């Protein structure tokens, strides 16, 4: 089981209580598709992903980015058993979506960078450590049902 300090719990709760889902979600997914273009392989039906401007302005990307970010809410509410929380989602990503689990890390790095820009100097090293630890647990849980 993952041990969380009081600081880590408070930090995660705080970040998500202030989260602008419709800004951060789309920005993080767009950045992932731009910085790591091979991730576009999973979005063949999203229309125009030809360049950074197209990706950033694509409404399907925006909608999906928001969806993904809200997907983290359940982990925020169940920090003591993120593994169980994401069992079904893990199966979905493996069996149905066939997403290479390495991609979860790429998206989580982009999310970290976008949240950093949002929080500015409040995103201290300690806050970054807590946030990245949380994302690492999520990423690990999502990769657990792959066989």
């Amino acid at each position, binding site marked *: 089981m993952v041990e969380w300090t009081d600081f880590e719990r408070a930090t995660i709760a705080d970040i998500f209580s202030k989260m602008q889902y419709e800004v951060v979600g789309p920005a993080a997914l*767009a*950045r992932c598709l*731009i*910085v790591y273009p091979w991730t576009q392989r999973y979005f063949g039906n999203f229309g125009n992903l030809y360049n*950074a401007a197209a*990706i*950033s302005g694509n409404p399907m990307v925006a909608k999906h980015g928001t969806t993904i970010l809200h997907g983290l809410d359940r982990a925020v509410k169940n920090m003591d058993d993120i593994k169980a929380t994401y069992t079904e989602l893990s199966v979905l990503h493996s069996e149905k979506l066939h997403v290479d689990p390495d991609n979860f890390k790429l998206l989580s*790095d982009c999310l*970290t*960078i*976008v949240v*950093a*820009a949002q*929080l*500015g*100097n409040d*995103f201290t*090293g*300690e806050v*970054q*450590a807590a946030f*990245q630890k949380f994302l690492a647990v999520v990423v690990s849980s999502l990769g657990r049902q792959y066989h």
Partner: protein
Amino acid sequence: MTTLTAKDKDAVRTFWAKVSGKEEDIGTDAVARMLAVYPQTKTYFAHWKDLSPSSPSARKHGITVMKGVADAVSKIDDLKGGLLTLSELHAFTLRVDPANFKILSHCLLVVLSIKFPNDFTPEAHVALDKFLAAVALALAEKYR
């Protein structure tokens, strides 16, 4: 991985012009974050008296590292040749596992994102990510 296109190099040089003057702050913040977020990196600094992210040793090291990155920008047209000496240092003396270059690169990008929220666009991000990956590759050149 890949070679840097002319567009990439332009983007890196343009962005770096904005960084000018803030290198020390950026370097110290990046190294501090690396030590805080990836504690396993502290294993390379067991000889420091104070391993805390805000220690004088960490600050000094951040400045050193950043000077290297700035130097790499000026040698962007031939990173392998330009970073030869640094590669030998990292290969034979420091023996830093190259996986750590990725870690420090990520921390650097986080700092740039915080300090330049408007300039660190997705386009700048991809160019800098490619650049730092190329620097890492050049640094690992002499490893084996």
